[in-house]
């Protein structure tokens, strides 16, 4: 196979993986920084309810 294509493929893999990693870490940091305290009772009540809907 043409080495150009192989280079393109691996370059693309590395590039997209790094973009994904970058944005993933960004989202995780954002979720951490902008975390909203949720009352644990809300979840507990939801658990107990029938939950057909």
């Amino acid at each position, binding site marked *: 196979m043409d080495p150009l294509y192989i280079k393109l493929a691996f370059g*693309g893999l590395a590039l997209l993986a790094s973009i994904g990693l970058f*944005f993933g870490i960004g*989202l995780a940091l954002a*979720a951490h920084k902008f*975390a*909203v305290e949720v009352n644990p009772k809300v979840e507990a009540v939801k658990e107990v309810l029938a939950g057909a809907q």
Partner: protein
Amino acid sequence: MKKDVAALMTVFLLAAALLISGCNTPRFIKKAEFKETDLIVLTFAGPVDETWAGDSTNFTVNEKPDPDILLDIRSVGLSADQTRLTIEFSEPINQDQPHQVIVKEVLSEGKNLGTQTISVSKSYFGYIFGIFLGALLIQNFVFSKYLGLCVFFGTSQKKTTAVGMGITFTAVIVFASFMSWFLYQFVLKPYRLDFLQIIVFIGLVSLTVQGVDTILRKINPGLFKAFGVYLVLVIANCIVIAVPLILADNEYNMIESLMLALGAGLGFLLALFLMSSVRERLDFADIPVSYRGLPIAFIVAGLFALSFMGFSGMSIF
């Protein structure tokens, strides 16, 4: 905190706009513009030689994308004060395309100023306004491209939901298409990965939605409550993926892509608003049983699409 972000965004946008508008150096050919259907008028900074201007072989004109195809010039005329030159073509020219005029060996008051090139295009403001209005009305994504129908029928039952969805959608699509424009121009294209654009854009859209969701929840809970359900629905809308693909296809620059995204978002808002106004009234109408609900909504959407066809083929500037 919010003010800081807004200020930063403004500074960034201003800098980008300055970069794009570029630096215009002063030239001997002051202005070049289209007139009527087959004329280009050049304005010079000083008087030019009459015999030089009378020779039409001194001028070559081509459409910018095809430099090989020269347009046929019928005659060249000079105004009385020798500063305005009119090039007449034997056929009407396509003024939607930018044209390139090459003027050989400009002679002015006995001096040879060398060969000069200038490009002629319609006014840029008119062009970007045309893109905006095209996405909003003429090529409305819902009524003439039939995109985003699922969300369109799902959220157009009540006016309040329709407007909420429309506004959320506009905000998300502007942000998402800006990001995908940036990624396409500066990452995908230079590394020749543009065949992966669909996958990358899908990822970007869901990333944008997730990001807006997370940040809005903390910063502005009121707005988050108003956006609420619709924010997640935006992912399922195909207009939000169509716009980045169109941007990538047409090689739009930043301002053009922002205008297209804004037009698409507001067009969707308009479509939702119109549809919900009708559907609210349909609730009181006496409709045959088998047509109630979705079937009549489809018929109404078809009628809207018919009336939006009235915009087709319109050009504003």
